[in-house]
């Protein structure tokens, strides 16, 4: 049996334990799927697979147990889904009936966002589509996630690029009744950026996360929503070497900036990737080039909004898989 | 704007006398001619306003006895003679003195509750012949908390005055002194004719409730008792809503209420 596994993987099919079987991966940008596609998934699973569908952590589907010989036929079946979720959103897919054109850059995941969630400060699905359009199809292994508020339900802190919605709260003292619902709540669930003085509220802009909790709690509309911005955290990862949470890169960045840095990231990777390796994850490239190079190259030609701030240093928390800690004598539990 | 009822007037402090560690009596130069039991809104610009019952008055002054319990009273306590404060009022319904004429009057006051009835006592001290008798029961936490010592002393020369404290210390209690709650004094009171007796009960909510209950046990009817309610009066004008209980605004219909009405106020 002859099979180009590189081509297979690029077409979003897996090499599996069984030499005759493969597994189809379906991208669902932003994790929001029109329900009309479920019959297609079911048909593929029933006719070509083992009748089951796996829900991935990246908000896609994997349909296992498909014969390697059936990939071309199955690709034609998912063409309508690729057309609607990719092509119609502006993604360049040369031949949808031939399946996915790339798999290295992973599905852009997103929390449910403000189409449903009261706490979300923006429409995460729509930004996920815009990012998908900017970065896909592409081969480098990059994970991007979008979340509606700093609760980070989608765990953007475990992504190469994590995008967190921010809203600038606007305060109208003439509508404030001094109930302090915002002050108490900010202290309780967010950063304690609000202070009550002279019967009115003062916001410490340095401390404010832009979570919008004050707007949610205000009974009179004294707090309302100003501009939508984004906090960007970078280079969070899992993996066998050095799992770590992402660290701040930008805050109060506008949408244009977010899309631009996603695009510039690929130029940066192209410039610095170690081509002797089968693949190199972007986080390890940043470890090698250092943060300043990453920052300067990714922000090239970016016009930051007046409010935007760029991190001066990159110091992510994490650890090396260091077996000595567990083999050592220090902990007797 | 004409007739702005929120505008206070400025009035000088003529004198300031310390009553206890936390209570002071101020004489304020102004002519209000209140009814005993009424209150004023006292304010300090930039700090705020609070309701204070008038403890006594002359034609050209009012006496306020103020306990340091909150932000405004804390700041008031720092004022001295010749300083100014700001007043609005008098507000509310006072004690119906005419209803007590010819009766035996029992006044039971707990702590600062003595302030709003002080001018009632003074009124009758000046005309003892208009009452069949006056019994004054004054309860305090400790001898150090006793208010109006000289006045209690002087009233005791004309009337039956009994002072009780919850707990004793080195400071003496005016004779005849008791230890215990006011309610404990009531069963032994001489009440020759319950029907010809009227009572005023002013103090903390629990003290009023139990004292009224004891008086009812001694044969008084609900409508023979008057109380003065402590509520969060704020505007004093029946507008702000803070002191409303049911359809009653304490600042307009009270703070003095007949007990038959007061006991029906469900908070």
């Amino acid at each position, binding site marked *: 049996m002859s099979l180009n596994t590189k081509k297979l993987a690029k077409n979003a099919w897996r090499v599996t334990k069984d030499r005759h079987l493969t597994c189809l991966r379906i991208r669902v940008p932003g994790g929001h799927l029109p329900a009309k596609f479920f019959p297609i998934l079911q048909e593929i699973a029933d006719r070509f697979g083992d009748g089951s569908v796996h829900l991935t952590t990246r908000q896609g589907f994997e349909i296992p147990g498909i014969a390697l010989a059936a990939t071309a036929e199955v690709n034609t079946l998912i063409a309508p889904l690729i057309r609607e979720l990719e092509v119609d959103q502006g993604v360049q897919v040369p031949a949808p009936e031939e399946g996915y054109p790339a798999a290295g850059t992973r599905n852009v995941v997103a929390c449910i966002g*403000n189409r449903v969630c*009261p706490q*979300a*400060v*923006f*429409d995460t699905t729509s930004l996920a589509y815009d990012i998908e359009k900017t970065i896909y199809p592409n081969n480098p292994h990059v994970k991007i996630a979008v979340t509606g508020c700093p609760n980070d339900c989608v765990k953007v802190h475990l992504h190469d690029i994590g995008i967190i919605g921010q*809203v600038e709260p606007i305060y109208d003292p*003439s*509508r*404030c*009744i*001094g*109930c302090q*619902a915002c002050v108490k709540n900010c202290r309780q669930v967010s950063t304690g950026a609000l202070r009550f003085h*002279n*019967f009115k509220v003062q916001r410490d802009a340095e401390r404010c996360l832009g979570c*919008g909790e004050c707007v949610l*709690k205000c*009974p*009179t*509309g*004294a707090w*309302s*929503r100003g501009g*939508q911005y984004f906090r960007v955290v970078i280079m969070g990862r899992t993996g066998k070497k050095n799992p770590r949470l992402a660290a701040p890169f930008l805050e109060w960045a506008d949408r244009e900036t977010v899309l631009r840095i996603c695009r510039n990231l690929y130029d940066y990777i192209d410039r610095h990737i170690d081509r002797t390796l089968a693949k190199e994850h972007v986080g390890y490239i940043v470890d090698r080039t250092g943060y300043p190079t990453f920052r300067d190259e990714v922000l090239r030609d970016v016009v930051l909004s007046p409010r935007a701030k760029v991190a001066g240093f990159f110091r992510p928390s994490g650890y090396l898989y260091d077996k000595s800690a567990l083999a050592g004598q220090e902990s007797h539990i | *704007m*004409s*007739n*702005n*009822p*929120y*505008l206070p007037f400025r009035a000088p402090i003529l004198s300031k006398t310390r009553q206890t560690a936390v209570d002071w009596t101020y004489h304020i130069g102004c002519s209000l001619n209140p009814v005993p039991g009424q209150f004023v809104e006292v304010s*300090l*610009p*930039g*700090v*705020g306003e609070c309701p204070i019952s008038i403890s006594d008055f002359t034609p050209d002054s009012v006496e306020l006895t103020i*306990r340091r*319990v*909150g*932000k405004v*009273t804390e700041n008031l306590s720092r004022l001295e003679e010749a300083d*100014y404060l700001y007043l609005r009022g008098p507000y509310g319904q006072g004690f119906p003195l005419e209803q007590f004429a010819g009766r035996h009057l029992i006044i039971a006051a707990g702590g600062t509750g003595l302030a709003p009835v002080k001018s009632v006592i003074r009124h009758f001290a000046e005309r003892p012949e208009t009452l069949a008798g006056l019994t004054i029961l004054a309860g305090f936490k400790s001898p150090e908390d006793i208010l109006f010592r000289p006045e209690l002393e002087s009233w005791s020369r004309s009337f039956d005055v009994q002072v009780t404290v919850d707990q004793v210390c080195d400071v003496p209690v005016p004779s005849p002194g008791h230890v215990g709650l006011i309610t404990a004094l009531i069963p032994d009171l001489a009440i020759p004719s319950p029907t010809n007796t009227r009572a005023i009960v002013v103090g903390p909510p629990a003290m009023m409730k139990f004292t009224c209950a004891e008086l009812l046990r001694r044969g008084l009817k609900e409508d023979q008792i008057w109380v003065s309610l402590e*509520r*969060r009066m704020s*505007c004093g*004008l*029946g*507008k*702000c*809503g*803070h002191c*409303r209980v*049911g*359809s009653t*605004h304490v600042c*307009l219909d009270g703070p003095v209420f007949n007990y038959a009405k007061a006991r*029906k106020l*469900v*908070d």
Partner: protein
Amino acid sequence: MGSLIEAAALDELLRLLKPKYRIYAPVRLPGKGRFSDTDLIGYAEINRSRDIVFNERSYFSPKEILFPVNQTLFYFTESQWREPETDDREILVFLRSCDLEAVKRLDQALLHNGPYPDSYYQEARAKVKFVLMECQEEFEGCFCASMGTNESRDYAFSIRPENGAYLCDVREDLEELFGRLGKPREHEPAFVREHKNPVRLPDNPEAFSEHPFWREYSERCIACGRCNVVCPTCSCFSLQDIFYDDNPKVGERRRVWAGCQIDGFADLAGGHSYRRDKGERMRYKVLHKIYHFKEHFGVNLCVGCGRCDYACPEYISFSRCVNKLAELEDSTKAEANRKLGDTSAAVEVKKDVK
């Protein structure tokens, strides 16, 4: 006088009124809703007829025009007071029947309770005229007809959008303007007459003051006060003194909306607080709206606008609460009758008061 006025002509009319009037109407404030990418329907000054939102209920009521959220009563310096300057223009407010009736309740509370009228409200009130926005059908959760506030006629003119133009019933001194800008057209404003969920009032809800019924609200209410601030008839306020940071001898005294559901409303100096329990606060509010105010002024305070139900983040329904009280009263009466074995006599529910 009935009149049909085209949108452009109404705009002209508004333009002509502008020098003399501040004109307020419910408008769409884009992005100003509580949740992201949502709008707020609130009151603001308008210039054009198309700014007026006819097909939705405003989230906040028009009370803030006559009774601002924050109102400076006076500025003070070391020994002097100065009242704030006021706008000499008259006020024209577009509002619905329930809200117009609500203004009459505010009149009772702020002008006629106690010996002194509230001079700030009085001054604004003397300047205001109303434009009745017709309700051709109810909004979700309204019950004005149950409260008898569905038909208010104290307006300068009424208005109903009709195929890009407006049908009006014109009164008072605006007849001349309408005569010039509109066309005569017989018109009688429509009023809402019935509701999907009508509200039935109990006769004596005070009898249930101590009933365990209220405990449900102790658990559910979060004391946010949204019901108070959206209510067109809640008029409680607190007085606040502030001094300016860089000169504590100069400052101002304000009054600011307060709400009986919010923590601190019934606190006394020294720490005591009445109605700490949220069920007690609910009872206090509900009884005021449907019973205690009426005891004093002869009409119920609640006008049935339904805003409190819509605003409650815990989905507590005022109208459901009132209906439950009525049901409770029914069943208590029925039980009393059954016990007496006398089903024909109406039995007075004994007041349960401590």
